[in-house]
């Protein structure tokens, strides 16, 4: 799953740790999501969308899309 997390996070000027704190997960989780090696749970995806003020599909794109 590709994602736009690094760009969105950079636009806010947040560190990976800051985003992890906002989501209530570990920094390693944010790193793994950004690298596309960990697909977050639906609750985390919704929290990401809320944090960035967008829809989930604006953040994540399936590999085959």
């Amino acid at each position, binding site marked *: 799953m590709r994602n736009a997390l690094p760009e969105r996070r950079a636009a806010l000027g947040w560190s990976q740790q800051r985003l*992890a*704190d*906002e*989501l*209530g*997960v*570990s920094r*390693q*989780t944010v790193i*793994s*999501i950004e690298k596309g*090696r*960990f697909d*977050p*749970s639906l*609750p*985390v995806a919704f929290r990401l969308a809320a*944090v960035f003020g967008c829809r989930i599909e604006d953040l994540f794109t399936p590999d085959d899309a």
Partner: protein
Amino acid sequence: MTDTRASAPRSSIGRSRFGGGGATLIIASLLLGLAVSSAMGGLYAWLGDTGDAWLRFSILAFVTLPVTASLGWVLLVDRSSVKDAVERPEDSVESRWFAKAAEGTMIDAFVVIGIGAAVFSFAEIELPVGLVLVAIDVLLLLDLGIRYLVAKLRSA
């Protein structure tokens, strides 16, 4: 955008979920551990038929106290007061790594115990049951640790 991070100061020990500071938590954990270890020591002294009962009680209570006190801390601590503890560990990637490692270890346990049972049955090998169970336990713990590290390295 609201900052959801807890504003209260955090520490390595944390605070009790039932109120009080770090010192209260440590004392409560030790007391809980002492109660459980004493019960285990008492049972061991009562069931055993060799040696001095007080010595058996003391040794078992002393040896198990670090573990039972730590378990007491786990039961009593308010997670949100512990430094670097994440709010939702179940949503973190470490939880996924552990789940994958545990799945693999469970399959390995079926295989190891199945093969072991067959070998011991046909070869008629006799070993102390306690020793065999400890060996299996250590083997599975090692297996779990290695599988967790592999899952972590693959995700890194």
